[in-house]
């Protein structure tokens, strides 16, 4: 049944494939997919897993893609090599969009053979098999997904022992659940061994690339970062795809920050909405807590007014924005880098905010930890920019390192300092010339400690003022403070190949860019210098990168090319040399998209 285009079995493709599994939401397929992913990881092979789920709880189509790459490419790939179709509602469509030569696995009664003669077909009698191995009728709908794991185990050579180990871990060792799933796993593998004749070229094989590595979602990584950053107050409001960040954080805090008497050195509070969460951040940051929330686009929009207050009244806190596809409610379960403008310029009047931009879980961990320091050092809100792809998908990562930098609290005016100064201080006085003034914390026990905080005009010693010179003076100081922050935020990662053409990017497009750059170099003879921006404000290195290249392509996972816009707005020398590579359909960008758009523009 296999046709032209399919590689000869001899030309076996080892540890380099993309697997897509189509199921229905809430059908329990997440367990099966995670078992596959973890087993591959345990075999020492680089993997990544991306979950494409609908914005409902049960019944709608969902897809999981696993990319296996001996060379460590873990970005999304557009096409799949192996496709498992468990969802009869979408099977026709899934099969129709398969690339020529793909291996297709599906319930045999769905009869897809004639539709795609250019693919390799593996019909499987799932219904029959599940009846054979799962006596409990009610459970079959869930357990059937373990069958395809078994089938794939045989087909691709995934080790059964690792699958079982992964299953055990995935089910938290709950014996009852394990006993229900293992028979299906084994039955699938057994049936495949007996009935399937391998005709596709893909297989996996143990290697040793994962030493010192972990598999983790970015939300969990960021939550750990906040834990080790010494967070104390976490007001939040649930919103996809950020909820799991706060939920993980609450778990970690409860486990690791409850003392022997059951007393907690933290407070996690579910606010009534995002405005209240932002208000609580403001009150808590003002009163000296290290305070964090996580939200997504609609939440950031709601916080818009309070963000201006916090900028202007100089209140430290951190917002992890796990971006989804917008505008509006948009596609809550899809990814995008669509809130860059929103975050940087949030609120009315002249405002700018610090944004830290990790590209992978390890950086998410590190920047989360640091974000609390940056917020307190600059007494201002700090955004940690994540997106659904980083936050909720499964990433291979090096183990996180224990933070080397201490917890810093910024310029805190203590009772002792006040006594030395005989109480003579001004909350908004720029005594150090860096735009950052000293602050006291409420409760500081000195008669001169208190000051009046407000969103209205004020003098250097915190008195109300409407005078033009006070207003301008204060705004200029805030601009100076932002200038100082340029020297503090993470510098970009620049890789130079001596090219006059640059490619600038940020966040989760990292893996696709890496892959695209390699492909452009290897297959198209185009070497590119890379600049991965890791923060706003842009540091000098970003400006230098632009200045030193003739053309700079900017990769944006949004429609309007928001990073390119901000670069042009903030770095006047950009001018027309900045060009955009854009992707905005809700899916993570692929290397192929970058390569195509780059080449097309270079030709034009």
């Amino acid at each position, binding site marked *: 049944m296999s046709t032209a285009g399919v590689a000869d079995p001899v030309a076996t493709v080892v540890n380099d494939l993309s697997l897509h599994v189509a199921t229905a939401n809430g059908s329990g397929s997440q367990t099966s997919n995670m078992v596959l992913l973890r087993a591959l990881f345990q075999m020492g092979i680089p993997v990544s897993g991306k979950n494409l789920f609908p914005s409902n709880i049960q019944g709608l189509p969902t897809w999981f893609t696993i990319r296996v790459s001996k060379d460590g490419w873990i970005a999304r790939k557009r096409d799949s090599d192996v496709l498992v179709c468990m969802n009869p509602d979408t099977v026709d469509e899934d099969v129709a969009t398969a690339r020529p030569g793909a291996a297709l696995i599906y319930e045999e009664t769905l009869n897809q053979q004639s539709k795609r003669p250019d693919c390799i077909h593996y019909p499987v009698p799932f219904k029959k098999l599940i009846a054979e191995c799962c006596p409990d009728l009610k459970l079959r709908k869930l357990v059937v997904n373990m069958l395809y794991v078994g089938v794939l185990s045989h087909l691709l050579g995934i080790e059964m022992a690792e699958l079982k180990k992964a299953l055990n871990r995935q089910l938290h060792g709950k014996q009852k659940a394990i006993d229900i799933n293992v028979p299906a796993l084994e039955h699938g593998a057994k049936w495949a061994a007996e009935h399937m004749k391998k005709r596709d070229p893909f297989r996996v094989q143990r290697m040793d690339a994962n030493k010192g590595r972990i*598999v983790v979602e970015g939300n969990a990584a960021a939550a750990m970062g906040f834990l080790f950053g010494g967070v104390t*107050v976490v007001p939040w409001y649930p919103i996809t795809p950020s909820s799991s960040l706060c939920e993980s954080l609450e778990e970690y805090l409860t486990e690791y920050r409850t*003392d022997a008497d059951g007393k907690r050195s933290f407070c996690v509070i579910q606010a009534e*909405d995002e405005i209240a969460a932002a208000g609580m951040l403001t009150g808590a940051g003002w*009163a000296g807590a290290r305070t964090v929330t996580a939200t997504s686009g609609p939440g950031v929009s709601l916080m818009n007014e309070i963000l201006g207050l916090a900028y202007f009244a100089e209140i430290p806190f951190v917002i992890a924005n796990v971006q989804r596809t917008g505008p509006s409610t948009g596609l809550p379960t899809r990814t995008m880098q669509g809130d860059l403008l929103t975050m940087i310029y949030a609120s009315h009047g002249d405002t700018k905010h610090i944004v830290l931009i990790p590209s992978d879980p390890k950086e998410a961990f590190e920047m989360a930890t640091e974000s609390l320091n940056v917020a307190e050092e600059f007494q201002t809100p700090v955004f940690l920019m994540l997106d659904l792809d980083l936050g909720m998908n499964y990433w291979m990562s090096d183990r996180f390192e224990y933070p080397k930098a201490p917890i810093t609290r910024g310029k805190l005016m203590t009772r002792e300092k006040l006594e030395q100064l005989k109480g003579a201080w001004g909350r908004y006085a720029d005594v150090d010339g860096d735009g950052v003034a000293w602050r006291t914390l409420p409760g500081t026990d000195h008669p001169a400690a208190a000051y*009046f905080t407000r*969103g209205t005009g004020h003098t250097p010693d915190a008195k109300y003022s409407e005078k033009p010179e006070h207003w301008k003076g204060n705004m200029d100081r805030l601009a100076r403070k932002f200038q100082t922050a340029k020297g503090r935020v993470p510098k970009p990662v620049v890789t130079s190949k001596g090219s006059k053409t640059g490619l600038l990017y940020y966040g989760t497009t990292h893996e696709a860019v890496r892959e695209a750059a390699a492909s452009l170099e290897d297959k198209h003879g185009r070497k590119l210098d890379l600049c991965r921006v890791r923060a706003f404000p842009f540091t000098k290195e970003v400006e230098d990168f632009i200045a030193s290249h003739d053309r700079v392509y900017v990769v944006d996972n949004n429609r309007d090319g928001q990073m390119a816009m901000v670069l042009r707005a903030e770095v006047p020398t950009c001018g027309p040399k900045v060009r955009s590579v854009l992707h905005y359909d809700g899916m993570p960008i692929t290397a192929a998209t970058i390569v195509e758009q780059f080449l097309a523009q270079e030709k034009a």
Partner: protein
Amino acid sequence: MAGTTEAPEAGPSTNRIGLGKKDYAGSKSTLCVGCGHDLITARIIDSAFDLGLKPENVVKISGIGCSSKTPAYFMSRSFAFNSVHGRMPSVATGASLANRQLKVIGISGDGDTANIGMGQFIHLMRRNLNMVYIVENNGVYGLTKGQFSATADKGSKQKWGTVNTADPVDLCALAIEMGCGFVARLFAGNTKMMKQVLQAAMAHKGTALLDVISPCVTFNNHAGSTKSFPYVKDHEAALQDIGFVPVYDPTYQEMKEGEERVVSLGDGSKITLKALDNSHNPTDRIAALSMLARSRDDAKLLTGMIYVSPKAQPVYAETQQMVDAPLASLPAEVTRPPKTVLDKMMDSLS
């Protein structure tokens, strides 16, 4: 020139913590001369002085409005945060979580609380933070020049004659409905009751809601207004004669029960309520709600303790098992877990 508060009453020149009245003073008011809000300011100064609150342990938090400006006019030695319109409750919540040892005085207006701030008001009332929530209620938006707020009575008239067609929001009823354990309605011009209840509210462990009718002399003091000084003076019906017995008072003796109710306020202080209207039992939640509903139907302005919980409710920090020390000042040894924790987490992911 503008907005003077009344001359202080005669009394001892220092209080139990050795501070003078001026240690509780604020900047000069910039409100209109005669504004009800300035009377409340004066009573807060009196009460904090009499109670001997330590200013450094108090934070004053407000929204936006004439009322919300008042934290500038009392207790300059206390930290203050004049935040944004309608969001005092969440900012106060954050501050209180960061440092549970602070006594929060929240100041708001009727527009700030009953219009834009309604959601936050209701949700704050469910939390029982250690806080006094004062609504300086004049039935209008003073600062934006006299539009009706949601507490304006139906049929009451705006300065330019427009008649209000909406029913008023009763903040006391909502607070009780949401479980608030200390709810009073007051009139800014009733000095004695203001002082007694303010002191009790400050001593109360948990959230106290004071809905204080505070006439706006510039925009809502005309005939046809139901929140003018003359109208309120005419229509005020005090529920009780109120006495406050602070816990530290050495002369304190067990009170005789009788028509006088004595309610303990958690920190050991007590409030004594001598009923003027014998039908109301202020420790009965359902009765309090019914009375408020009836009084609205009868257009009566009842002042006094509307409801006080007969037993102390745990404050939010207790329900959350928070450590006693302020979270804001925990040392890094407490807030950053050791390396072994990270190692364990990494192991579980590899």
